[in-house]
């Protein structure tokens, strides 16, 4: 009974996660074609209006429609999170595979490199990086991406090491295939599942990180709306217009929740061994 129940939960979180993620993606897509109001036109007279029929989520300190801002703001979150995951996976996975294939000194170096990056407080370092290159979406991507590299490298290495001792790999080796060939033909395809799961997790962490950087003024810059910066603007207005703080935060929370549920569901589905681990 309990097994079945567990897998039902798994499926359910996969389902809910997928639905939420799709809604956010659709919202971002729709924002390219249509938003209730323009986010570039300011209407100071209509500033700080609470939610109403005409503005479902109210207006901000410049009289902009918060619903429209959230819709357009989703682009910055998704863009930054996606590209930083791509950077992390694009550099980290090859590194991890290389270390697993070679072992020895290469492996040791990679592990020490990971230790080194992990030793830096991520957020603080991201702040330093953006201080050097200036605030902006691209630099936020670099700052977040760098810290994704060791995550993917470690996951790829760990999973690849487990595969290298499996029979089909030993067989491939016996017929004289080289390390590179084996990695491409046998290791990488078998890593797809675990990388997709890790990618989902890093994606949701990326959304949180982007929001945090934007909140301290180092993420996407105006006039491009961003959820984190909306929260920053909301802070000084909190006693006058709490709705300004409520909705962008909800948007972040729901998106991250959706991605996490999707990630958990995928894990149950693709990799039952890891069911309980987070």
């Amino acid at each position, binding site marked *: 009974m309990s097994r079945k129940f567990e897998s039902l939960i798994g499926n359910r979180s996969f389902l809910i996660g997928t639905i939420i993620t799709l809604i956010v993606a659709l919202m971002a897509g729709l924002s390219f074609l249509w938003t209730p109001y323009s986010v570039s036109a300011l209407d100071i007279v209509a500033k700080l209006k609470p939610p109403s029929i005409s503005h479902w989520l109210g207006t901000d300190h410049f009289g902009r429609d918060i619903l429209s801002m959230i819709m357009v703001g989703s682009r910055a979150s998704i863009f930054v999170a996606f590209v930083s995951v791509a950077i992390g996976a694009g550099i980290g996975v090859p590194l991890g595979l290389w270390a697993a294939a070679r072992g020895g000194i290469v492996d040791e170096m990679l592990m*020490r490199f990971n230790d*080194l990056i992990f030793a830096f407080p991520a957020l603080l370092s991201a702040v330093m990086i953006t201080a050097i290159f200036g605030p902006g979406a691209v630099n936020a991507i670099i700052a977040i991406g760098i810290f994704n590299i060791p995550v993917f490298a470690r996951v790829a290495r760990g999973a690849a090491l487990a595969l290298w001792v499996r029979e089909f790999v030993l067989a491939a080796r016996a017929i004289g295939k080289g390390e590179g060939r084996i990695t491409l033909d046998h290791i990488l395809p078998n890593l797809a599942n675990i990388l997709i799961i890790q990618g989902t997790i890093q994606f949701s962490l990326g959304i949180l990180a982007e*929001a945090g950087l934007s909140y*301290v003024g180092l993420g996407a810059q105006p006039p491009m709306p961003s959820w984190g910066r909306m*929260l920053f603007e909301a802070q000084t207005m909190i*006693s006058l217009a709490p709705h300004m*703080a409520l909705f962008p935060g909800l948007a972040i929370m729901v998106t991250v929740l959706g991605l996490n549920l999707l990630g958990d569901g995928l894990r149950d589905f693709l990799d039952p061994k890891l069911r309980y*681990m987070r």
Partner: protein
Amino acid sequence: MLSYASKRVVIGILTLLAASIIVFAVLEVVPGDPARLMLGMNATEDAVRALQDQMGFNQPLILRYFSWLGDLLTGDFGKSYTYSVPVIDLIKERIAVSLPLALISLALSTIIAIPIGIFAASRRGSTADTTAMGIAQVGVAIPNFWFALLLVYIFAVVLRLLPAGGFAGWENGFWPSIKSLILPSVALALPQASILARVTRSSLLDVLGEDYIRTARAKGLSRRKVLYHHALRNALIPVLTILGMQFSFLLAGTIIVENVFYLPGLGRLVFQAITQRDLIVVEGVVMILVATVIAVNVLVDLSYAIVDPRLWSRK
């Protein structure tokens, strides 16, 4: 045990050394001149140059690195460009805020999370389990600075029970200072507690699934006894790892929450020092934080060995 420990320590020291090179090199390329920043818009060129000389910027890079590193080894972190007091004094003042904040939130999250995790694991699949884990799922997804804003709105703006920000200062009494740390530590603790509860639960479930636990049960030991005496001890390893990571995170990662509450902690010190180009302060604090992370990692590794003596014999 000894060789395992000493290997960990040596690696830790090497990592720290590498980190010092990175920190120094990265900050070397930061654009902006602290001397000009101090003297502002009306400053004459020769006044700016005089201040640069005073700050000792006109020496070669390598020389400055080694003299900085040498001073660090003797515990001398240098003198802040802007405050012109020893960096170590600034750090001490800020740690008096950051450390209590980190400890309170860590304690808070541990007290909440571990019982919930154990409870959920022991009632796996029950409504209570699903509810607790559902809440934890939401807790993980909440950005802590947003949660902080909501707390400010409820407890400072509407109810006026607690300060909205700032730090009273320990010299103004214990209670006012603690009061200014309550909201920040709650804001920090919620996501941490959510993660910790999930890890506790899953790690306990893993252990409960292992053969020796089944054997113990088969031998007729009660469910409770197995849970508390055998399973819990072994389930501690992942929990310890997470706790160690969280401590390091809390010490440095409070930067955004410190910004919400304008707390004069380490994170805000670095943040301000970066904008003021007070690089020697940035270098000092980052090195301390990196050293803390490394030390905590080594300690966690060593405590594995204590919890699980099998590790003693492994490399």
